[in-house]
């Protein structure tokens, strides 16, 4: 039962948040969401058994935020275009002025809601919702072995949104479920980015969920950063910072100091070779496709946690 909850946490809190990255990388998918202001949500009902439910609530953490205490659920929702009620600025607004001044990033932050934004927890009134009967059903669906379809609310009211969400989820599923590294370099880079983000978020998530192995590792740790890097492609990397039981995962490079330990791949192809278990890690290290920067015993511990995430998210 706990394994179902841990797996659900990884799917809701680590895998689903990758959806915006997929949509951002695929213009066809992005067009499907452009101009919309909506919320869609993926959720699952928790166990009816009070004892099991308590454990699930603890493990799923902020995925249960906003849930009805009488019928608790866990979920993740997405704001499309900032969600309903958010307006894009008319011309001449603050964003335009900032763009004219040349401070484009500030302009973006000030004026443009992201196309798709992930929010852990439940929204009170999503336009579209995919609700699973329990955590096991959610896990099975995302593992590609569905035990039935989720309850879908809002598909008929907003077929356009439903189709865009469905296509995006299928695209993400295809990317994460790839058995072979994609040949096209852009796709390989995207899959690398997704995997490394998933690993860092998964490890941190399992610690926050109190998974015995992950929590023991984080509890003993002084302030350290473990990073996954791809040479020459800092945007593909990810890291997890741990300190005395706390952990935080993030995408991209850790810039504030040298990471305590880093797993560095010489290319996205090398990264996927190792992550998809097509390449032997020792051979990859010997041949320079993978470098472990830091003491090997810490690399071994990190490797075990990566396998743990992989077991739940497979």
């Amino acid at each position, binding site marked *: 039962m706990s394994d179902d909850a841990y797996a659900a946490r990884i799917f809701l809190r*680590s895998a689903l948040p990758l959806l915006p990255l997929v949509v951002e990388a695929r213009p066809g998918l992005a067009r499907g969401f452009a101009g919309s202001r909506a919320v869609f949500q993926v959720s699952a009902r928790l166990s009816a058994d009070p004892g099991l439910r308590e454990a699930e609530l603890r493990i799923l953490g902020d995925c249960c935020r906003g849930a009805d205490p009488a019928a608790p659920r866990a979920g993740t929702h997405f704001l499309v275009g900032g969600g309903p009620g958010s307006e894009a600025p008319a011309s001449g607004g603050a964003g335009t002025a900032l763009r004219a001044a040349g401070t484009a990033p500030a302009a973006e932050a000030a004026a443009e809601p992201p196309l798709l934004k992930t929010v852990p927890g439940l929204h009170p009134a999503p336009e579209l919702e995919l609700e699973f009967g329990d955590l096991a059903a959610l896990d099975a669906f995302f593992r590609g072995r569905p035990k039935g379809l989720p309850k879908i609310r809002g598909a008929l009211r907003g077929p356009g949104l439903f189709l865009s969400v469905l296509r995006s989820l299928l695209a993400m599923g295809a990317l994460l479920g790839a058995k072979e590294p994609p040949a096209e370099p852009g796709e390989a880079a995207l899959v690398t980015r997704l995997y490394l983000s998933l690993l860092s978020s998964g490890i941190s998530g399992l610690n926050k969920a109190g998974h015995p192995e992950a929590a023991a590792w984080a509890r003993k740790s002084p302030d350290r950063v473990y990073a996954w890097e791809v040479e020459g492609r800092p945007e593909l990397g990810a890291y997890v910072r741990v300190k005395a039981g706390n952990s935080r995962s993030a995408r991209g490079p850790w810039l504030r100091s040298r990471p305590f330990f880093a797993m560095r791949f010489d290319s996205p192809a090398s990264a996927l070779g190792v992550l998809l278990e097509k390449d032997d890690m020792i051979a990859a290290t010997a041949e320079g496709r993978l470098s472990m920067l830091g003491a090997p015993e810490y690399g071994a511990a990190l490797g075990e946690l990566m396998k743990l995430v992989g077991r739940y998210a497979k």
Partner: protein
Amino acid sequence: MSGLTYTMLDTAKLSTAEVYGQALCELGAEHPEIVGLSADLAKSTKIGLFGERFPERFFNLGIAEQNLFGVAAGMAKAGLVPFVSTFAVFTAMRGLDQVHTDICYQGLDVKMIATHAGLSFGQAGSTHHCTEDLAIMRSMAGLTVLAPADGLETALAVRAAYERKGPVYIRINRGFDQRVYEGAHPGFEIGKAVTLRDGGDITIVACGATVWRAMEAAKVLAAEGLEARVLDMHTIKPLDEEAVLRAVRETRRILTVEDHNVVGGLGSAVAEVAAGSGLSFSFKRLGVPDCYSIIGLHEDLMAHYGYDENGIAAAVREIMGRDFEADENWDDEV
């Protein structure tokens, strides 16, 4: 005065100040312009070995340190390379005017070997402690300041001092130092720190007698799962700024350790460089806490003031527990 706290077995491993005397003899044999000067402390400072080998090139100026440095300056002006040896407290304070005006201001090729530095002569009392010399000598323009970690490094420092034109101040202990470099030295270069141990959690920057202690502390910490980088900062001036900045960037925590007042010495030198980096970092100085030391044996005094190996390890643990400001966001990025 008793001061021997080691067994016969220990002395076989300890590097003594005699290494400095031997190194000077070798150098003197190669370079006839080298002369040795002392202020009636030839036996204590071990420059007496040079005097025994080259009696015609060794001068005892008596208990008159100002004259000692004045004569050294005159000899340097005449084309000789004087190695001047007395206690650090006398070099840095009693003869300072001559060091400043006669030697440093004129940029003369005088090499000052200051022995019994820090609290290494602890049992002799505060008049013979020298916890101010690094602060004083750092502020002498044009002066190179060295603080080697053990006998081997001292020998290399003596040779490097000869090869470096201009005034040089070398600070060493009373003689009973633990050996840091068991085998060959990785390479002594003035202004380049030696990374004795790499680590990602914190950087311990030490000089002189505290280098061995920093390494011992690092071993203890490693057993606890903390990985400390240890730098032998044998050159206080010019400081290896690149090593300090790399430590700030890569470990973000720095602990300095010196057998010296925490004011103005190694810790202050490192802080000056690190603060100029513009990066945030956690920092602590270990040393004599801006007071006149009590009297005791060197090891006991270092323990008393918290910069022995146990004090260093405790300080590291304390720093590792500190939070960086505005850095406590533990939400996973989504």
